[in-house]
């Protein structure tokens, strides 16, 4: 039993799941994708769309992406995470595209590890790295129907950085 169990653990491959979709994100599914019987912790971060920005009412958000490059950039982020936190088991990063209504999730990240520190630190790193390097753009559309392309302060070439 024990030897088989230890082998079983070693044999369960680490997963990097990266996805872009115009469907609503299922938090339960993102969580389940990162779950592992060899781990005691899953840390998650969910980014949601806010109804206000600097006092203006946001009526919707639109996301677009350079999809192939999001895949390659986030794969590189997963490699970084595995180098920094070798105990991390599974990584699941899902980003929604297209119209996202207010209070819905635009990004969901779940990471598992045997002990909670690794997963928690890796999730923080992951969302920071995603904001700095994944070619994804968000336009906020306001009540007045004008709109604005947002800029992440984490992005090295933003004008508010």
């Amino acid at each position, binding site marked *: 039993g024990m030897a088989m169990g230890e082998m079983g653990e070693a044999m369960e491959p680490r997963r990097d799941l990266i996805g872009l979709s115009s469907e609503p994100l299922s938090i339960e599914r993102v969580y389940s994708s990162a779950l592992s019987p060899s781990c005691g912790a899953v840390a998650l971060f969910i980014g949601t769309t806010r109804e206000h920005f600097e006092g203006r009412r946001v009526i919707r958000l639109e996301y677009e*992406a*350079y999809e192939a490059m999001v895949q*390659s950039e986030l794969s590189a982020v997963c490699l970084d995470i595995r180098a920094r936190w070798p105990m991390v088991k599974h990584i699941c990063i899902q980003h929604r595209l297209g119209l996202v209504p207010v209070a819905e999730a635009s990004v969901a990240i779940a990471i598992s590890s045997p002990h909670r520190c690794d997963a928690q630190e890796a999730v923080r790193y992951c969302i920071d790295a995603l904001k700095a390097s994944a070619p994804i753009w968000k*336009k906020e559309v306001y009540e007045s129907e004008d709109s604005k392309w947002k*800029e992440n302060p984490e992005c090295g070439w933003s*004008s508010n*950085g």
Partner: protein
Amino acid sequence: MLADHPMSHPGSFLSQSQVTVLYFAKSAELTGLRLEVVPLPVATSSGQLWAVLLELHPSLAALQDHVVLAVRQQYIPPGNQSIILADGDEVAVVPPLSGG
């Protein structure tokens, strides 16, 4: 449209590649395009590439100093580092990111 462009005249044929340029977010709004195939110099740099794109689409000047280019899906540092472009390569105009 390509035939009208000064860089596509026959004399520069050997030193140019047919490259797919992708525009995203504000750069797509400024150019009115999401994708175009244009002849670009085979041997170039980030700064030169940006100058060529500005010549094609002067409205892109609104992004000046707040844009990077990606070549074959890799960000390239701004400046004069050498870039070699082959036919079919992909260049992307990348305005400030706002994912997450």
